[in-house]
Each structure stands twice: as structure tokens, then as C-alpha cells.
């Protein structure tokens, strides 16, 4: 780790200002950032903790029924507090990492980082969520731009994420045996106007929507609807833990299982 300064503002404006500093970085739960700093792979001059901003923490229900999660809300809080309003999302949050990770790591940090194997991106894209920042609102469909890249501008802060609540949903996570991130994960959500299927962990392009499955499931929300589809291994991740063909297989298997579990 290199030396750095640390500030903990209590307002979003204060944080935004602190982030204007050159080489400043926002600190959510530090579950990604701190390990990379320890390995000297990240070297911020100032860490701007978002943990002291009360309005960025917690889960609430908006007037339109959407579940709104403060950008600095830890996974464990989502797992507990969204359990009644959006069970599939709460279950996803409750399956991230281990208790220490869930009590520190935040939704804003996860979405800002956009790890290709992370879970929240699948929920956000699969739910058609809105990513609210200190300057604007970004639709999930416009937000994810590929592995570790997003529509966020430097210094922009995710203050809230709004999830429209589906009629039925489920997340199937197939564990990468070492990291226990998603080797592949599929989030399926059924809305009145159609089904969304978001896939994480599989593609070299990061989280994506499987549109063929969405069309088939919108017509017939049953595992059998997906049976006839094929997923191309083209563009899928190949590494120690699975070939592109294996991941393509998982996309289909997990989609079927998510539909079956969503009921």
C-alpha cells in the first residue's frame, strides 16, 4: 500500500467536491479497492469515504413501488431489508461473498466496479433498474459498457439504485470454486410488459441481456421455452475455471433453473 489521505464527508456535495482532487477515489466498502491498494495496484491520493453520508444508506420504497437502495448500502442490509419487497434481489445480495464482505461491500461500489463476475450488475440490468448519481439518472441498459467500464464520469457518485419490482424473479449463481464470485449468473425477472434475462460472469463484454431467451420467455414463462435455444460460445470468457463452451452451457442451464425457481 502507498500512503494516501482519507476524508469522510457527511454529504453528497461534500463527497463530490472532495472527489475533484486529482487521483481521488471514492471508497465504498473497500472490498475491492482496499485489496488492490494493498497490492499496490491502485494508488489513490485521497480516499473519499462514502460511509458517513446518511442519505446514501438504507432501503426504501418509492411512490411508484420501486425499491430504492442508497448507494452506500451494504449487501447485508439489502439482504435483510429488501427481503419482503424484492425477495430475489435480497437473496442475490445475501449470496455475495462471505459475511465480512456483505457487511462492508456496497451496492454502489459493486456497480461502479462492474466486475464481469459480480452479481449486482445482473440484478440491475435484469430489473431494468435506474442508477441515480449525484448529477443524473442512468438507465441500466445505458450504464454497463463492458468489463470494469460503466457510463460513470470520473468523480461521479452512485447515490441510489432504483429497482422496479417484477411479478416474479430469481437469480441463479453458479460459483467459481476459488473466488466464489459468479462463474456464471443469470437473473430472470418477469414484468407485466415482458421478461428480462441478464447474464453475468459469462461474457468478455461483461453483463448482458439474453434477448432470445427474453422473447421466448415473454411468450411462455417456462423452462421449456428456453430448451430449443442455443447460446454461442463466441465472446464468452475462457479461463482456468471454464471454457467458453462451458459458460455458454451454463447460461442456458441457469436460465431454465431461474425460470423454474421464479415460478
Amino acid at each position, binding site marked *: 500500500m502507498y500512503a494516501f489521505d482519507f476524508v469522510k464527508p457527511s454529504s453528497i456535495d461534500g463527497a463530490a467536491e472532495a472527489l475533484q482532487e486529482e487521483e481521488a477515489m471514492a471508497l465504498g466498502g473497500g472490498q475491492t479497492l482496499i485489496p488492490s491498494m494493498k497490492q499496490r495496484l491502485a494508488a489513490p491520493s485521497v480516499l473519499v469515504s462514502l460511509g458517513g453520508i446518511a442519505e446514501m444508506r438504507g432501503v426504501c420504497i418509492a411512490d411508484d413501488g420501486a425499491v430504492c437502495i442508497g448507494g452506500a448500502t451494504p449487501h447485508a442490509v439489502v439482504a435483510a431489508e429488501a427481503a419482503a419487497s424484492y425477495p430475489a434481489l435480497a437473496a442475490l445480495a445475501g449470496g455475495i461473498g462471505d459475511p465480512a464482505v456483505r457487511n462492508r461491500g456496497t451496492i454502489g461500489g459493486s456497480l461502479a466496479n462492474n466486475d464481469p463476475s459480480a452479481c449486482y450488475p445482473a440484478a440491475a440490468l435484469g430489473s431494468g433498474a435506474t442508477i441515480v448519481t449525484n448529477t443524473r439518472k442512468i438507465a441500466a441498459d445505458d450504464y454497463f459498457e463492458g468489463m470494469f467500464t460503466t457510463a460513470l464520469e470520473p468523480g461521479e457518485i452512485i447515490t441510489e439504485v432504483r429497482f422496479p419490482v417484477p411479478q416474479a424473479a430469481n437469480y441463479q449463481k*453458479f460459483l467459481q*470454486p*476459488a473466488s466464489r464470485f459468479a462463474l456464471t449468473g443469470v437473473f430472470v425477472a418477469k414484468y407485466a410488459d415482458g421478461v428480462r434475462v441478464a447474464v453475468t460472469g459469462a461474457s468478455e463484454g461483461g453483463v448482458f441481456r439474453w434477448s432470445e431467451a427474453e422473447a421466448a420467455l415473454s411468450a411462455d414463462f417456462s423452462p421449456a421455452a428456453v430448451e430449443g435455444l442455443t447460446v454461442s460460445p463466441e465472446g464468452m470468457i475462457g479461463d482456468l475455471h471454464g*471454457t467458453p463452451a462451458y459458460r455458454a452451457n451454463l447460461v442456458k442451464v441457469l436460465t431454465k433453473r431461474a425460470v423454474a425457481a421464479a415460478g
Partner: protein
Amino acid sequence: MPKDHGIGASSKRREDVRFLSGRGRYTDDMNLARQAYAVFLRAQVAHAKINKIDTTDAAAMPGVIRVFTAQDFSGVGGLPCGWQVTDRHGNAMLEPKHPILAEGKIRYVGEALAMIVAETEAQARDAAEAIVMDVEDLPAVVDMKAAAAGGTLVHDDIGSNLCYDWGFVEDNKAAVDEAFARADHVTTLELVNNRLAPNPMEPRVAIGDYDFSTDQHTLYTTSQNPHVIRLLMGAFVLGIPEHKLRVVAPDVGGGFGSKIFHYAEEAAVTFAAKELRRPVKWTSTRSEAFITDAHGRDHVTKIELALDKDGHFQAIRTETFANMGAYLSTFAPSVPTWLHGTLMAGNYKTPLIYVNVKAVFTNTVPVDAYRGAGRPEATFQLERVIDKAAREMGMDPVELRRKNFVQPDEFPYQTPVAVVYDTGNYQATMDKLLDIADVAGFEARRAESAEAGKLRGLGLNCYIEACGIAPSNLVGQLGARAGLYESATVRVNATGGIVVMTGSHSHGQGHETTFAQVIADMIGIAENQVEIVHGDTANTPMGMGTYGSRSLAVGGSAMVRAANKVINKAKKIAAHLLEASEADIELKDGAFSVAGTDKSVDWGSVCLAAYVPHNYPLEDLEPGLEETAFYDPSNFTYPAGAYACEVEVDPETGKVTICAFAAADDFGNVVNPMIVEGQVHGGLAQGIGQALLEGVSYDENGQLLSGSYMDYAMPRADDVPSYVVDHSCQTPCTHNPLGVKGCGEAGAIGSPPAVVNAVIDALHRGGITHVTHIDMPLTPGRVWSAIQG
């Protein structure tokens, strides 16, 4: 009734009080006055020529005390290898120099290039980044078969990447080939024994200290065998005589073999402490551990089994490529040879065996002993090929094994691969296994799994290991450059309490408890009257340390001998006090009595007389009560057993779930059943880890792909089932005083084939019959790919 103390009791591990309450004293917990910190600059490429290492800027950085490179060590020796293998043609193995810091060439990612010593660790790290390396990349040698065939050399000066080409038993080769030519059936299997990173919970640490006023060096280090380190480093590397060098290995957080070896960092900090006249401390990071702790296994093998039409084994022939990595680690050459070839008979009467091992240098981390060392490799290939043969011949795998077992009345049994099994009963452990694994109920469980769309399989295997390492005169003939006896001093204090100083070293095994149980039992006193001291060359007799499941069998035997000397002397004292003949004195329950009378004197009074010799036979006997003994075993011990694993395979994803695992072991006599079961549990977790999860992986440039826990999968609690273990089949070792065999490695040796056999069985029962083998680790991706064909 289970015993509540002494031999046979499940006494609670006394060391756990400090381990579980955070009071353990590990090397990194030590900090010496005026201590400086060492950081090593490590190679980022696997193979390169070093033109220049420019340390000018680094040396001028804040807090930097000195930067060391290879030149600074030109006056000292390289790291020695403790074993010399002689090849098929009678030539000594090729033995390249193993420098403390890289000389002229980089040979693996992680090799130490420079050591920076600074006031703080952070300053040393900053300075390491300021070192300018001028290197020319060379093609990396990674694949063993390509390396053996020639091409780029890891060590130019020795002229080959082939360390040795070993044949065992070379004289049997022609007869083995003939047996294959006339066999009714030959089963062939090619397999990989995957490379493992040992990953003890505590990373390595070394602190060098030097007192110029007495010319005394001290090394505090995370070692399984401080005396071995003192001998190797003192005599071969730094030229420090033993009386000027103390090596201390305090609490050590697991070793699994990786802390047997003498590592460069130990010599470097000891050397630097004298140069700088300051203590110098180095603590490995977890990332460094992955690229510097000696790895384990890494064999590529072809095994052939010849059978007659009834399934009797006729001959075994193997060819193995064994990875040595870039340099020879301390005991590396012995692992694929004498710890592997000698076990190829397994539990069976195979009259003819020929083992060929080609040890190869590659641009990877050195490979050496890891829990089981050689024996897991032998067991895996043998038990896999037997399963494959059973399937090919349509025979029951259990019956095929039973038919070929060395039968209970055939011990001692001379194998065709040098070793003589003293005792065993393989039918008994198999019977026990079938019972505790509820093999009879398998079919019902399989049907239940099938209902849920899962393929259930049952895999069994046997294992045998050679433990209690080792008879020195035998291993000396086989190339060992050290003796492998063990030592103990039993010191009785004036009021009867006992301190045992042992050359064995406990790094989690529970010696402080079990050794005390033995002494308490022998004398008939309470366990808490006995203290066990280990881990410091200054206060223990020269001993060889702990590995190869040797502590109780060899170290315990030395302790029993020393205790018997003490008891014999105490009897003389008692005879004097009781005015009786020594021959009539009996020791029971902590009291000496005269046979046939009610005259007796208790243990404490005898001890007091020894140290307060007012009424004492001073003309015949020295005062005091303290004895030392050395014990060199006459043979190895041969723990053996049978293991069963039940798995479920998800055919859609390839995921393997272990539903049940049963182990029936014969460890001979058992001192502490709870500790023995704990050792088996830990070994099983490591074996299951090897079978399903763990694997070190390099790319073709010699870059480590599995260099952190993000990619190297360690077994976790929910990866393993609740084990069913049994050690009630006991054929005591015939040649050590406790009749014990050793239990530390069995689980890791015996479990991988059971897991793989179970997965193959599941696939076959599920109609997926084209899969005859899958290489470990059986990750979901690999199993799924195998199913696809």
C-alpha cells in the same frame, strides 16, 4: 470404557488453549530491538538473462539500510540438496547450483533477485520498486515432456533439463516387459497428478539476529525441523558451526511439508543480520507464498497393469515425468523416487514392478514434499488403474482388490520394490469400510439421486504408505545425505514433574498432548505433570523434525527409550530407599513397590532423592534423573486402509458434490483417538481439495495463473461432508516400542482416488460410458467437458 487419561484417551489438546485464545507465539509475533525489515525483489518473468541489477536509486531511498544482490553472497554456498538419486545408468543426478539470490539468470517467477533491508517494511517495498532490472527474456520451459526432450535449458551449465532418469527396479525391467507380453489383459491409464500449492495458514517468516559480542547467530523461522535448518544453513551455506548458530521454530501455523525445506530467505536474513549488526525480519505475503513456497505433486504418468484372465495382477509398469521446478529443493529428488516407487506394490501381491521416473527442470517454483509426498502419487495411479481394469474386465472393484491383497497371514511381506511390510490386515479394513460406508444401502440412495436428476456414484480404494521415516542405514544407501533418527531428553525435576525435550516439532499435530499422555502412562502420573518442549536447537537434542508421519513412531520411540532409561535408574534409587533388590522393584500407578510385599515409595519421593541425595547410593549411581535417547527405526511403518466416497454429479453443469466419505484406517496402536481423527479429517480435506478444487496452473510463458485465492481454490467447510472414520482395525507396528504407525498423511494419500473413482462410477451408472478418466481437479467445467466427449 474409553480411557480418561494416558495412552488411548482422547485428552483435549492442551495447545489449543493458546491457539484458540490468540496466545500462540508465532515467528511474526516476535519483534526484536533495533529490528530492520527485509523485502525481496522477485522475478516477474520465468526465464531471462540478467544483464544488470541497478540498485543505485534504491539504495538512496529513505530508510534504506542496504540492498543485497547475488554478488554480496559470492562468499557463501548455495542451498544444498539433501538427497542424491542415482539414475538408471549408475550416474548421479544433475545438481545445479541453487543460489540465495538469482545469479546471471532468472529461472522462475518469484525467484529472489535482490534483498532490500530498510527501517520499515514499506520503505523496503518502495525501494524494491526503484531497482532497475536490465534483463533479456528467454523462452520459458514449462511443459515437462518438451523440457525433457531438449531445447531451451533451465540451467545451461548442466547441459540438460533431465535431472535424472530413474529405473526401479532396473534389474526387473526385462522380466516386467515379458510379463506384459504374455498377460491376458493389460489396462493402461495416462494421468496427471496435479500440482498443488501447500498454503499453510501461517505464511513463512524469518528473523536473523547476531550478537557480535559472542559471535552468536540466531534464526527464528517457520520450520518443521529447526535442527535440519541449522545443519544445512550452518554447514553448507553460511559456514557457521552449530555451537554458534541457534535456530528457533516457535509456534508454527501448519507446514504440510512446505516448511521442511531450507529456503533462501532464511540464509539471507541470517547473513544480513551479521553484516548490518541488526536483527533483520522478513514476512512472506500470501502472494509471495504462492510463488516461493515449494509446490507439491506435479507428476505426469502412464501406468500399465498386466492381469491374468482371473484378475490376478501379473506386473505393473509406469513411466512418470516429475517436475522439480527450477532448482532442487531440499528433499525434492527423493519424492518421486524413494517415496513413490517403493509404494507401487500398494496393498497387493504384484510379483513384478518397474517404475521409471524422469525428473525434469522447468521454469517454475521448485517442487518438493507436500503432505503424503510421493505416496499420494503412487496410490492415485495404482488405485485408478485397478478401477479401470475392473471395469474393463467386468469384475467387481472390491473383489478384484481382495483377490490381490497381501493376505493377513502373509506378513512380513517382501514387496518387489524393496520395502518389507511388517504387518497389516487389508481384508479387515475393507470389511470395516463396507460396513461404515453402508455400501449395502448405496443402490437406494442412488435411486433417490436419480429422482432429482443427479448421477450418484460410489468409489473405493485402498492405500498403503511408508511412514515413520526412516531407517538411516537404508535411506543412506538410497541417497539420503542425512540420518533420519529422532531424539529426546526426559528431564525429571526434583519434585517429580517431567520436561521432555524432543527433536520432533509440532506445527499443529498436538505433540504437547500426545507425548505427555505416553509419559504419564508409562510412569503412572497425571498428564499435567509432563511438559513437552520442542522447536529450539538451544534446548532440544539434535533431532530431525516432523514430516512423513514420523513424530510418534520415531520421535515417540526415542522418548520412550529415554523414559525407560529414567525408569530403570529410578528403580535403582527406589531399591535403595526400600532396601530391596532392584530386580524386585515394580513401577505401577506412580509408585515403586517391592514385588510380593506392601513396601512402596512414590514417584515424587524417588525423584526428590535423586536431587537431594541425602539417602542415596552415591557410590553406585550419579544423582539427578535425566536421560537422553536417540532412536533409529529398523524399518518404515506401514499404515494402510480403505476409503469410500459417494458423490452426486449434476450432469447439466458437471458439478460434483461429495455426499459421504468413509475412512477405515489401520494406524496400529492409537495414543489419542480424537487427535488421530482430527489428522484424518484434515488429510481428507486436503485430498478432496486435490481431487476437486486445487491446481497450480502456469501459462506457456511460465506465468502463474493461480497465484491467489481468487483462482486457487482451497477446500472450505461446505466442500467436504461430515466424515465417517474408523481406526479400530489395528495391527500394531512390530518394530517400535509403542506399536504405532503414524496417521498424519493417510487422509491426503488415500482420498483422491476414491473421489475420482466415484465420479467415474457415477458417470458410468448414468450411461456416460465413454469417460474412463478425468484429470484432477475435477472442476465442474472439466467434468462437463468430459461428459460432452
